């Protein structure tokens, strides 16, 4: 049979494809519907949080920080309650990471504050002297992309039925409403910050990246 296959490239290719494809079918598909069901109480991201999540992706925080607390006592002692599948229901893409050059961040909102992040992003060594993390000063001047974050929220609402604008849920509304809500959230965060340029920018109606990413990190609980 194999000799015959080697002389018939078409059937050879079909054979290879069948052999490699069905592992995926069996392993991935059966659990698909269940794994994407949210845990009770998990809400979709606000526009500002989404903008912050995109900053997190842009500067590749996931390369060094995980968002997955494994079921070991040493991990729950260090980072908090073990991670549950439903907590990630609104994470597109998932941001578990694969390497902990720095600590896990899945519940960082429970034990770090806005001003801690502000100091740490500006100069990590001022907070943790032995750290190898670079400073992210450019986040204090670059502006967050609120419109794209809104577009993302609208997309997942329309395509995946993510529950925006539901009773007692996160309100999305129109683009202008989305922008205004993001700015309100940004003002609340900037009030706890000390960098003058950032405060001025928010007062002018602009949202620097640092404000958005802090909104995102504070939400990780």
């Amino acid at each position, binding site marked *: 049979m194999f000799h015959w296959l080697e*002389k018939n*490239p078409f059937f*050879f290719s079909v054979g290879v494809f069948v*052999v*490699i494809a069905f*592992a*995926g079918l069996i*392993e*991935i598909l059966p*659990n698909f519907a269940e*794994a*994407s069901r949210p845990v009770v109480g998990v809400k979709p991201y606000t526009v500002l949080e989404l903008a912050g999540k*995109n900053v997190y*992706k*842009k*500067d*590749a925080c*996931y*390369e060094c920080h995980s968002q*997955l607390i*494994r*079921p070991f*006592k*040493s991990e729950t*002692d260090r980072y908090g309650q073990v*991670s549950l*599948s439903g907590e*990630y*229901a*609104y*994470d*597109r*893409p*998932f*941001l578990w*990471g*694969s*390497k902990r*050059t720095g*600590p896990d961040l899945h519940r960082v909102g429970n034990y770090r504050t806005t001003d801690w992040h502000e100091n740490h992003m500006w100069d990590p060594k001022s907070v*943790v002297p*032995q*750290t*190898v993390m*670079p*400073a*992210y000063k*450019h986040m204090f001047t*670059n502006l967050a*992309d609120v*419109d*794209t*974050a*809104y*577009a*993302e929220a*609208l*997309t*997942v609402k329309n395509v995946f039925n993510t529950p925006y604008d539901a009773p007692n849920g996160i309100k999305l509304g129109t*683009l202008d409403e989305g922008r205004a809500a993001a700015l309100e959230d940004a003002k609340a965060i900037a009030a706890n910050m000390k960098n003058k340029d950032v405060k001025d920018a928010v007062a002018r109606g602009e949202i620097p990246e640092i404000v958005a990413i802090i909104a995102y990190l504070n939400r990780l609980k």
Partner: protein
Amino acid sequence: MQSNAALEYDYSVAKLFTYTTILFGFLGMLIGTLIAAQLAWPELNYLIGEYGTFSRLRPMHTQIVIFGFTLSGVFATFYYVGQRVMKVSMAESPFLMFMGKLHFWLYFVGALAAVITLELGMTQSKEYAAFEWPIDVVIVLVWVIWGISVFGLIGIRREKSLYISMWYYIATFLGIAMLYLFNNMSIPTYFASGGIGSIFHSVSMYSGTNDALVQWWYGHNAVAFGFTVPIVAMVYYFLPKESGQAVYSYKLSLLSFWGLMFVYLWAGSHHLMWSTVPDWMQTMGSIFSIVLILPSWGSAINMLLTMKGEWNQLTENPLIKFMVLASTFYMLSTLEGPIQAIRSVNAIAHFTDWIPGHVHDGVLGWVVFMIMAGLFHMAPRMFKREIYSKKLMEAQFWLQTTAVVLYFTSMWIAGITQGMMWRAVDEYGNLMYSFIDTVAVLHPYYAIRALSGVLYLVGFLMFAYNMIKTMTSSRVLTEEPQFRSPMA
């Protein structure tokens, strides 16, 4: 009967991809060395503002060595090996010639665009699939064109029976096509929202745990079909060719091939152990990872036994040395991977530097060594000149071998140290170390790794220099060498 002597193979596309293999290899390894040094000396993050941080450079390192260096090497060897094992010249078909050239130029332009978008921070943040959707479209196009080349060449072949290397090239084409398409399913937000925000941004079709499953089904098997399958294709062609020995066992190659195809795809979930994916998937990933030793070692042993009775060539021909060491590192790496996929080992190894250590003894010792050996073998036949310097090749071999050993030993120690420190508790059951203690302790190992990066990079420059000299100023050959590559 067709006379084979009259057949003049056309290497113009193979040559083009040879150049990009060298170019992207240098770039990818340069960036790799820099980011290794950044972990030891963080001040190196600020060389070019926000564009020079570890954040932007690490995705570039991985994407350039995978999609730049390795794929170029795969294409270069395919356009060389494919013609020869099927006894057909590209020059016989103007259509295939055009497709080959189009393949290269579209690939090259796409690669440059990919580098620029990553540097600007445009990423969908999936590891080894970082590119945003417009680049994905280009990659799919490039892949389809390569498929046309592969099956077009097969269509006009004279040798009816496909040689082992062709099995592996076909599997590479099919495997990557399937994996890449499914993992990159995403919706461009600009179009879905009626024209709001950035046109480059997209959102994944899968969420959370599902996204993780698809990503690591892809991530692990991109390693399979990018770093293993086509490299096995190379060793099956170049080692017998260079040594003049027949492949040891046809049955073993059959078993290894179909075994590898069947088993590899199951193993992806070993990247997700102790995570929120169901236990049975984790167990499947673990079991199949261990079964995977069989087909992997099957190929490697088949290669080593091909040298049976001819081990003296190891002392005489540095090219044989490269390929035998590559096969050996393949065995090491495919034993190490399954060990890390055992649940209890994974609990310590996951998230630590042991993982990059494992990846690099595979890629530096196996993938890069094999690609370089392949190109060295091709050079005298493509450029009709002897290899410029045997001495330089010997020096390069020992320098890079030392570098690989330094890399994986330092990362093994670093990884296990960190994994043990994270879980260490004192007599009252409290954690013994704060996280930063486990970072500070790694400094010497990070420094050793940076040094190994420098050594490997210097070795690669020696390879590049040797190749360029071979192309331009080495002694001209009057007739094609049959087996052993001539070198000065």
